[in-house]
């Protein structure tokens, strides 16, 4: 395993709160690493509503989710944050020297005196269909992503969903699968029209089976799927052979391992004080939608304020004994140098 990464601050979550925290920390010469389970920065802004307008960001009368994130990325560029995408914060332990060691789900280790949890409502994970016992098949026969296409060669494959992932994998796996069945709740799809047309051609040619139906039950043993029961809207049920099931319903947010971090969660939120935005564990801070305090509002703008105050407190932990000089970006040549503008 590679050496642990040592830095000033590890931020969990690369949404707007986490990104702006990089800026506030950077002004104080504190280096940050960000961890995010998604494959790109932006959190909910880019995952849920990249094209939707936001009207309550101060001084930006209207900005889309994606544009806000792009602007934040531009703003924090001078501070050269390190992003660890596709990684989930899995464990947090206190080291004898008082610093924290954060371990990700891939085994990466990051050591820092300050951890900032800016995780919003938690981690984006695939939506799991409410089919009894589905957990037992996950990883062996039920997959929420395709890593190796070969794994589906010669199998009876069932795909559920009506978006781009469902249609793309229907088109890609149909030629190598023994059989491919697509089920969706309607005979209409939000996926790209050309993918839908191609799928319909395969159905007409007898190479893909399509049913307006839902998956009712899974049958198999020891995690190995053998067949599934489908149900139509008329409640009629029937069974088909399936050794692999790929449900594609996008992502949902689950709190995830943060629940085990021992930070006194209250209704899945981290209670913090409003002077430092520190949790009950010294050195672990929280900002944005994941925290609670009297009067808390889940607004992006609130997270910016929270990030600024957190950074001041984080400085004293990262640079004990050093005097914090409060300066304005407008007038301080020192800050302007850090920003690369003077």
């Amino acid at each position: 395993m590679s050496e642990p990464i040592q830095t000033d601050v590890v931020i969990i979550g690369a949404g707007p709160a986490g990104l702006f925290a990089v800026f506030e920390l950077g002004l104080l010469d504190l280096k940050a690493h960000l961890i995010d389970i998604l494959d790109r920065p932006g959190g909910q802004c880019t995952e849920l509503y990249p094209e939707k307008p936001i009207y309550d960001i101060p001084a930006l009368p209207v900005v889309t989710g994606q544009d806000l994130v792009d602007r934040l990325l531009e703003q924090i560029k001078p501070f050269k944050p390190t992003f660890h995408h596709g990684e989930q914060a899995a464990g947090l332990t206190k080291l004898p020297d008082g610093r924290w060691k954060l371990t990700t789900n891939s085994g990466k280790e990051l050591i820092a005196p300050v951890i900032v949890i800016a995780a919003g409502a938690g981690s984006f994970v695939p939506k799991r269909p409410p089919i009894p016992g589905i957990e037992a098949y996950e990883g062996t026969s039920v997959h929420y992503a395709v890593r190796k296409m070969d794994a589906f060669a010669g199998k009876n494959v069932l795909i559920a969903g009506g978006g781009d992932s469902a249609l793309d994998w229907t088109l890609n796996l149909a030629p190598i699968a023994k059989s491919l069945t697509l089920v969706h709740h309607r005979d209409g799809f939000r996926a790209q029209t050309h993918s839908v047309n191609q799928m319909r051609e395969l159905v007409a040619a007898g190479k893909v089976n399509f049913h307006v139906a839902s998956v009712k039950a899974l049958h198999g043993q020891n995690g190995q799927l053998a067949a599934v029961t489908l149900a139509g809207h008329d409640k009629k049920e029937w069974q088909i052979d399936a050794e692999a099931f790929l449900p594609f319903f996008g992502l949902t947010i689950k709190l995830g391992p943060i629940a085990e971090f021992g930070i006194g969660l209250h209704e899945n939120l981290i209670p913090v004080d409003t002077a430092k935005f520190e949790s009950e564990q010294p050195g672990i801070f929280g900002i944005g939608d994941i925290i609670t305090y009297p009067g808390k509002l889940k607004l992006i703008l609130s997270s910016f304020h929270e990030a600024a105050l957190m950074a001041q407190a984080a400085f004293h932990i990262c640079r004990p004994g050093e005097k914090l000089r409060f300066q304005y970006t407008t007038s301080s040549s020192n800050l302007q140098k850090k920003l690369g503008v003077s």
Partner: protein
Amino acid sequence: MKIYATDREGKEIEIEGREGWTIMEMLRDAGLPVAAECGGACACATCQVYVEDGWYEKLTPAADMEVDMLDMALAVQPNSRLSCQLVCSEELDGIKVTLAPE
């Protein structure tokens, strides 16, 4: 106006409706576990409800955006709607909805 909501355990509760609020907001205000992750932007499909027959037909039909978004919802039925797109009004007095599974 009243809304009757059945939770995932099958318990029905009566909610005092507020004109102009969405059903999603009313359900959450009543403490029901509706995720509504995107906060009502019709962007996440986690506020799905089943609308009781008779009431479903009275609703303004789903816009294309909602129909598209329902493709990402789980366990969709012919009477599924996203509750963030249903606005309370006098015409909906007495509407009955059931929370879809998570």
